[in-house]
């Protein structure tokens, strides 16, 4: 039987680059500055998102009208006015990501949420929560699937909150180490992220809520859900790769089958996004870019100032830098999940590694990977 020579794979250049210890994103000082700078502001923003997601999961559990869910428990007239004036973080973006994860599912979490164990735990929490609410109780009897589905959503609130809590810390320490001169290149960045992911890989994912002074487990430790396989990998799959088609300045015609009916073939995630539609009102990624612009480190902001349009297209520049940084995170995830050691000399292991990398590269073929190779700020 003839074997297809591996050299024929269209992304061989990238595969060889990874195998030789280089990175998907070209290693230049400007790229390093951009990636570290943008990850610093991203770290601040997802830190805030994470706090809010955890607050909603724990304190707004099954609230019928969670009017103050973005206030983290600190309600006042001035806070409300600031909120309406839009002087705030766009927590809606965090919920958008949460829903994308819920929708695409994946990992052990997805199957756990369909298990009898979870249904039992959810039922207990529901009964406790609506004990004194006859209206909801009767509704619950008519539509018994409604509240469990809500709880599945709260689970995702909590899981994404826990995931981002780790990532926020990871990105902020990256920025600190860059400022201390310990990180000087893109491979350093990738290594830092990989180390962080590996260190947190086995962290348990748990979730319990407090109702009437009693704690109700929804994901007990015994469910065996862990950081890397049940939060990080589904997150990368849902947010980096699949995403959701959103209406921007480029629109899709779903009726004309321009959207694949199979969500598994979606390619609307962060790695594929066209930075151009950013800036239109109401487009989710715009919310993230808007949030990050408030926390840009001075050095990166100065870099952006040297471009043709200066502040005018800041959101697009942030999006471009962000995309570069996400390729670094993907790179770290690829390395972290490698089936065998990079330097292995065993031909069998090498082959497995090769196939593993080809699988990633096949998916990245239509991504913005080509664009970030040469894209410098203009």
């Amino acid at each position, binding site marked *: 039987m003839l074997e297809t020579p591996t050299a024929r794979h269209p992304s061989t250049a990238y595969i060889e680059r990874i195998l030789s210890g280089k990175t998907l994103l070209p290693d230049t000082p400007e790229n390093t500055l951009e990636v570290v700078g943008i990850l610093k502001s991203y770290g601040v923003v997802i830190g805030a998102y994470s706090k809010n997601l955890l607050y909603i999961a724990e304190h707004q559990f099954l609230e019928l009208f969670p009017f103050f869910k973005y206030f983290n428990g600190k309600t006042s007239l001035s806070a409300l006015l600031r909120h309406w004036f839009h002087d705030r973080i766009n927590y809606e973006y965090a919920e958008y990501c949460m829903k994308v994860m819920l929708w695409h599912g994946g990992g052990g979490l997805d199957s756990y949420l369909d298990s009898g164990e979870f249904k039992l735990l959810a039922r207990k929490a529901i009964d406790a929560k609506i004990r004194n609410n006859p209206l909801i109780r009767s509704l619950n009897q008519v539509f018994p699937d409604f509240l469990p589905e809500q709880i599945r959503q709260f689970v995702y609130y909590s899981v994404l909150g826990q995931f981002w809590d780790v990532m926020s810390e990871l990105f902020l320490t990256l920025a600190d180490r860059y400022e201390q001169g310990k990180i000087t290149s893109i491979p350093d960045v990738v290594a830092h992220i990989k180390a962080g992911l590996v260190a947190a890989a086995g962290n348990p994912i748990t979730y319990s809520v407090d109702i009437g002074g009693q704690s109700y487990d929804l994901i007990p430790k015994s469910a065996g859900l862990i950081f890397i396989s049940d939060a990080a990998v589904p997150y990368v799959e849902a947010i980096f790769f699949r995403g959701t088609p959103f209406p921007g300045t480029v629109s899709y015609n779903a009726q004309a089958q321009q959207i694949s009916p199979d969500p598994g073939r979606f390619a609307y995630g962060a790695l594929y996004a066209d*930075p151009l539609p950013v800036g239109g009102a109401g487009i989710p990624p715009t919310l993230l870019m808007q949030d990050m612009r408030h926390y840009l480190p001075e050095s990166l902001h100065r870099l952006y100032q040297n471009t043709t349009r200066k502040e005018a297209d800041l959101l697009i520049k942030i999006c471009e830098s962000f995309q570069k940084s996400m390729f670094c995170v993907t790179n770290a995830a690829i390395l972290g999940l490698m089936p065998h050691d990079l330097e292995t000399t065993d031909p069998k292991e090498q082959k497995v590694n090769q196939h593993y990398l080809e699988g990633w590269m096949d998916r990245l073929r239509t991504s913005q990977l080509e664009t970030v190779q040469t894209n410098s700020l203009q």
Partner: protein
Amino acid sequence: MLSVLLWIPFIGAVVLIVLPGLQDSRRAQWVALLLATFAFAWTIFLGFQFDFSATGSQFQERLSWLETLGLQYQVGVDGLSYPLVVLNNLLTCVAIYGSDPDKERPRFYYSLLLLLNFGVVGAFLSENLLLFFLFYEIELIPLYFLIAIWGGARRGYAATKFLIYTAVSGIAILGSFLGLVWLSGAESFALQRDLAETLTLTQQLILLGGLLLGFGIKIPLVPLHTWLPDAHVEASTPVSVLLAGVLLKLGTYGLLRFGLGLFPEAWSVLAPYLATWAVVSVLYGALTAIAQTDMKKMVAYSSVGHMGYILLAAAANTPLSLVAVIVQMISHGLISALLFLLVGVVYTKTGTRDLTVLRGLLNPERGLPLIGSLMVVGVMASAGIPGMVGFISEFLVFRSSLPVFPVQTLLCMIGTGLTAVYFLLLVNRAFFGRLITRSDGKVVTLAPVIWRERSPAILLAILIVVFGLQPNWLVDWTRATIADFSGSPAVLAQRTTLPEADLARAITLH
């Protein structure tokens, strides 16, 4: 008082040339802008003194000059010319302010712009046929140089073509004026309403024919229009603004003042043919515009079409239709000036006006979103969307011409529909979709738009909306003059009239 309007730009033009220390482009621009703004302010000041109820000309001034030739320095302003003077002085300010601050040979450039203003204002204010002709010719010289020196690649061709066409136009007009004075046996070239009353109809028709040829080139009417798209494409943005905004109006103004004003009898004989000619112009302009891929040429052909409405309303010659003529002149002046300004910005930023290349310019971050939005406003106004001055003027034109020339008016209405077609094509191609990508697949980064490029367009857009909502502010100036103008016995005998009350109602309603 009125002469101040004339002599500010003239003296300004001389000062810019002779005064030392104005080599610096920006300083020359500021001096020119200061003078033009002063002239504009003076026009507004005169507006406050303007008597709305007076039918004749106001602020008249008269000095004898070459009495043996019958040439006097004789100026005045009435409801017909005043709005056009305001428009001209406003657009001169816009053109000067909107000029590239690093213009080469700035002293000559700004001095020519002021000289152009001088020629046009002079022509509007003249109450002497020969004086009008002199100003009409004076205005050619600066415009020729403005196109020939600061124009695009084929500027020599375009400028020469413009010069030849407009010189022929001048000769035809001069011929008619001379014929009129000689045949009527008048002692001077002073403009008098009854100058042609003693002439036979044939004589009148021949003289009117000369004027139609002359002003028809200037307006321009198909098939005398071919100089215009070339001139527009080669001219720089400020010159295009003035050309479309004011200079074309010299043609329609002349036709109204001298054609209809002096030969009402012959006019009524020719009116059905003129209305048909208007249809040809409107439809030809619109259909040709659809076929264009150069944005500026599209706007230029749109100009040809829209000037046809003026001829239609002038041919109808009812009190309401003459109001429509003035309103359409102002409306077209504002709208086409806006469109040319915006096309100019697009050209400066992208380096092209090719509609097969341009795409997605409405992009909020990397494109020209404000310019694009103003363009949408401009094309909506041009297509006669209610709430903007284009609707008022076109509605007035159609409302007043329909009872007189129903078929021609209906055909012209198709032109309005076609305006929407080509301008939607323009907006759709250039402004919607994904932003232009370079050959290597990357998005172009357009230089940011600065306020000097935005503000004149914003000002014009505001005026377009304000006059669209409050057309009376535009119509009131002309009402008395028009009532008198169309009140001459010969005209009254010939035309199909709308009752006065109808006119008043139509104007108040719209």
